[in-house]
């Protein structure tokens, strides 16, 4: 059927992009499986920490993703949105996706740290500078996600979200340097310390590195999928209510067609 009008094209995902996402997902899964295998069965227990050192293969990895990759990317994307020359809803969607995934990784950071802290320090939680600043970061970015749910025009929502993301991102260097600025229970950096000489070696170091790579890949896969969800939601109409209404309309139209055919 020919046409002289145009229905807005749906956000079709290219085959290449689909396969890239799949390959990253499968690689992330395999790398995570290897990290678990090395971390739980292959590496030796630590002289001081014993088996508890095995938690170190995932805890710094999830913290790295949450603090630096996810929230760092969200801050960068927010700056690019606010900068007039680069202003695009693309950056807003990217920031929103990074924050949502980052919040999940931040929760994992606090839980894994708490599980390590109980047998090591004797408590599940301490109001230590590193722990507290990480918890504050989580609350700030939960606020960001809550703000995005307030009904508004996409441009207004993007602008206010970008400001909040930048405000929240001020806490990232505070978390990083907290172990240097204050006397904390939390240990200092194992790899990225002041002398840049890692205090972990051999199979333990390789497992830690693999953990970082695996969790980074998991983050990239989640970011790609979450970004795609943002694109689809925007196309259908912002807000879950709009999406639900359009779904109902579509279903209704389908039923009408069936009745007409009958």
């Amino acid at each position, binding site marked *: *059927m*020919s*046409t002289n*009008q*145009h*229905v*807005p*094209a*749906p*956000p*079709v995902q290219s085959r290449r992009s689909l396969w890239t996402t799949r390959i990253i997902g499968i690689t992330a899964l395999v790398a*995570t499986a290897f990290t*678990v295998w090395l*971390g*739980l069965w292959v590496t030796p227990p630590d002289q001081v920490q014993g*088996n*508890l050192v*095995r*938690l170190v293969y*995932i*805890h710094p990895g*999830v913290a790295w993703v949450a603090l630096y990759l996810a929230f760092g990317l969200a801050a960068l994307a927010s700056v690019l949105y606010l900068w007039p020359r680069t*202003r*695009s*809803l*693309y950056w807003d969607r990217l920031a929103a996706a990074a924050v949502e*995934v980052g919040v*999940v*990784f931040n*929760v*994992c950071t606090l*839980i*894994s740290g708490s*599980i*390590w802290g*109980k*047998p090591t320090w004797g408590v599940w939680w301490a109001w230590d500078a590193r722990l507290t600043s990480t918890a504050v970061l989580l609350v700030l970015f939960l606020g960001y996600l809550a703000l995005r749910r307030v009904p508004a025009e*996409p441009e207004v929502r993007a602008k206010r979200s970008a400001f909040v993301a930048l405000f929240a991102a001020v806490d990232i260097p505070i978390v990083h340097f907290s172990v240097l600025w204050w006397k904390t229970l939390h240990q200092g950096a194992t790899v990225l310390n002041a002398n840049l000489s890692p205090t972990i070696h051999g199979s333990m170091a390789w497992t830690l590195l693999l953990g970082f790579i695996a969790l980074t890949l*998991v983050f990239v*896969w*989640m970011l790609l*999928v*979450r970004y*795609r*969800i*943002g*694109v*689809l*939601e*925007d*196309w*259908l109409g912002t807000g879950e209510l709009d*999406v639900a209404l*359009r*779904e109902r*309309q*579509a279903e209704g*139209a*389908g039923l009408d*067609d069936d009745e007409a055919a009958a």
Partner: protein
Amino acid sequence: MGYVQAGYSIVLGILFLYGLQLVWRRRRLNRSVARVVASDAAAVGLTVDTAGARHADAPGVGRPSGDR
């Protein structure tokens, strides 16, 4: 070793469930888009251009300059 097993189970469990939820959300939205496109096309008797997939009047598609 109990703390270690609990740590791995909880962290990997959270990541797995969140990943699963993302896939489910994406699938649901893809289906909604397909239904809306089909119903819009049927309503006005149009063919739908899925080849280009990037129009200035299609909000939220990729990174169009229309976003600015």
